[in-house]
């Protein structure tokens, strides 16, 4: 395949992938790990340990509280110091388990390795993915077992592996592809078998030719099903689920729909690797590769951090700050979609793809002006929305209008705000509208559910009242 694939809109910010040549290093052990019980979308996990309990590395410390939830494992051996809350990257308090490491790093009994996974029932593999607590490691952290259980009535024919890493500055997935291609491809085949699909693609942006080469070479060994490595145009947000599906298959996910509606499943490179490790090595997900980068740092690089490592330690590991350098902004994730955090105590989580520092000269003070109606945001919006119009509506709190202009389809990629010459905080507007409209929709749904329930109860009562009469 020599055709270069891409999608509508998008921007091309300065890549700044300075750490792409730095090999992944295992981070050392730290005395204290703050492990959030909510490292995924959905209900926070239920803690299985009590204060004072001794835990081992890889031991399960949290169990899923509902269908959309995940399992949590201890990152090291030690004692449970406390169970409380900690500051998460979104600025909210997350329930957490604080583990005081004993320095021994004694592993718990691993999950039984399934070496003969090609002849294993996919249901067993899926159960393993759930037991290993695997979530989407690209950023959204959607529990992988939920993604792999296809809702009834939907068919899947295509698996897309996301090795795009379109966020500037981040290089964690890139390094993983270079250093661990075999494990990734095993994981890809596993997922393909679990889903029973024949079309398998790995999408990689053209700015990582070495990764494309390595994976293409290794992928030739896989024939059932064949794994195709697809080079993609360098364009942000190529790695967004819907954009990637369109770029590779030319299928458009309908508004408000899921990839399953166009028969696709998209899986991250890191998650594929974690799935393979969980099945072949029996290793649960308690560590991940994270890029620590930014101009104020002495030695940006990629490290394999245990979950619960505070950002402060990660920054120290990257050589600390240059002399005279200051942190003006600390971002969890990449510069486009990452979340600004205000404390270095925030822990590395299963979805922390990067820790980015910005100096004072890189951070612009916000000055919002009136919309110029230039339309640049319309040109770059990968969802083909009209961010300028939406932001004016939202500024005037016309959320119903914004809803009919499809604000709920916004993926918050930030292209509009990046390109806006008036410096309007467009993403913040969209997020406000999404939270307001989302709350309204949830309330409507709850009211409809309650009405349906009341109706059903009334019907049951009427039937119950009639039944004795029928007896007579």
């Amino acid at each position: 395949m020599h055709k270069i694939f891409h999608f509508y809109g998008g921007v091309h910010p300065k890549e700044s992938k300075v750490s792409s040549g730095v090999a992944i290093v295992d981070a050392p052990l730290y005395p204290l790990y703050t492990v959030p019980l909510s490292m995924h979308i959905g209900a926070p996990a239920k803690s299985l340990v009590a204060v004072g309990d001794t835990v081992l590395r890889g031991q399960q410390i949290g169990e899923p509280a509902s269908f959309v939830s995940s399992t949590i494992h201890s990152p090291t051996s030690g004692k449970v110091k406390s169970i409380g809350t900690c500051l998460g990257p979104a600025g909210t308090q997350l329930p957490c388990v604080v583990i005081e490491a004993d320095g021994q790093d004694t592993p718990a009994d691993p999950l039984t390795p399934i070496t003969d996974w090609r002849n294993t029932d996919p249901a067993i593999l899926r159960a393993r993915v759930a037991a290993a607590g695997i979530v989407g490691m690209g950023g959204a952290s959607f529990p992988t077992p939920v993604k792999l259980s296809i809702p009834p009535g939907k068919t899947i024919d295509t698996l897309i592996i996301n090795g795009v890493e379109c966020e500037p500055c981040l290089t964690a997935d890139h390094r993983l592809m270079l250093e661990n291609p075999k494990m990734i491809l095993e994981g890809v085949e596993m997922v393909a078998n679990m889903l029973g699909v024949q079309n398998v693609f790995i999408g990689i942006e053209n700015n990582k030719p070495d990764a494309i080469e390595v994976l293409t070479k290794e992928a030739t060994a896989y024939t059932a099903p064949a794994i195709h490595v697809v080079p993609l145009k360098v364009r942000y947000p190529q790695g967004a689920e819907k954009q990637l599906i369109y770029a590779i298959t030319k299928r458009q996910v309908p508004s408000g729909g899921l990839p399953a509606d166009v028969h696709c499943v998209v899986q991250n490179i890191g998650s594929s690797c974690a799935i393979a490790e969980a099945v072949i090595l029996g290793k649960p997900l308690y560590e991940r590769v994270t890029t620590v980068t930014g101009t104020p740092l002495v030695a940006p690089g990629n490290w394999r951090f245990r979950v619960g490592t505070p950002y402060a330690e990660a920054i120290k590991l990257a050589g600390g700050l240059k002399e005279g350098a200051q942190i003006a902004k600390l971002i969890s994730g990449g510069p486009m979609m990452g979340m600004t955090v205000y404390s270095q105590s925030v822990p590395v989580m299963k979805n922390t793809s990067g820790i980015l520092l910005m100096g004072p000269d890189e951070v612009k003070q916000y000055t919002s002006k009136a919309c110029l109606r230039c339309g640049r945001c319309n040109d770059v919006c990968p969802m083909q929305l009209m961010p300028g119009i939406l932001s004016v509506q939202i500024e005037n709190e016309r959320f119903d209008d914004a809803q009919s202009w499809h604000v709920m389809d916004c993926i918050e990629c930030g292209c509009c705000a990046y390109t806006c010459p008036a410096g309007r905080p467009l993403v913040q507007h969209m997020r406000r509208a999404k939270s307001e409209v989302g709350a309204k929709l949830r309330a409507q749904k709850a009211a409809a559910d309650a009405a349906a329930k009341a109706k059903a109860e009334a019907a049951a009562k009427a039937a119950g009242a009639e039944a004795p009469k029928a007896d007579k």
Partner: protein
Amino acid sequence: MVTLVIIVVVGLLTGIAIALVSRWFGVEPNPVEEEVRNLLSGANCGGCGFPGCAGYAKALVAGAAKPGACSSQCAGAAEKMAKLLGVAVVHKEPKVAVVFCSGDDMKATRQALYNGINDCRDAMIVAAGAKTCAYGCLGLGACARVCPFGAIEINEHRLAVVHKEICVGCGKCVGACPKKLIKLVPKSAEIHVHCMNPVRGPEKFKACKAACIGCGKCVKTAPEHVKLVPGAALAEVDYGNPPPEALAEVCPTHALRK
């Protein structure tokens, strides 16, 4: 010339059509309803629980509501309305909104510089507003902007303050505060515990020097007026039996104040 004729003819025809339609479909305004509406303030604040002044007037005439629910009308207007409708006035207890936070920028710390959209509800989306205390007033004025009477002021240290003499207790600000710091309380209460953070005293005192640290001094002095919130390091004024103004002097952090 032809243009002029066409315009005149079209204008005449349209005028006749409008006149006829308004005669056939015109709705006679209810004169009583009109009069009742004129006695209301016209602020459309919604404090009566009906959709605007017109909605309340309609309900009054229909007998579905009693005069006295409007908290922003002039003195004596409710009695006039009652006379007009031939019913009794049902006075509701006058209430005012209170912002239950004392943590202005002199007393409470902020952990980050927020320079996004200047509205509390937008700020909440970004790291929950950057104030160290999770129950702290952000001071970006969402409540002040929705107040139809201009009763809320953001003071120079970025804290929302309700002017009791202007506030009519319509409750619009209650829904606007994303931290749910505003509550309607009886106007007769002189002092309030201006804190809603339930965490341990030392913990919140680190974030805010004006926090109620739950020391219980006020409760010991006047147990009939103030009580501790169960399960929280927080005192609460008993609005059924509000404390005298002098009790504020015992509070070491001045969370209990006017």
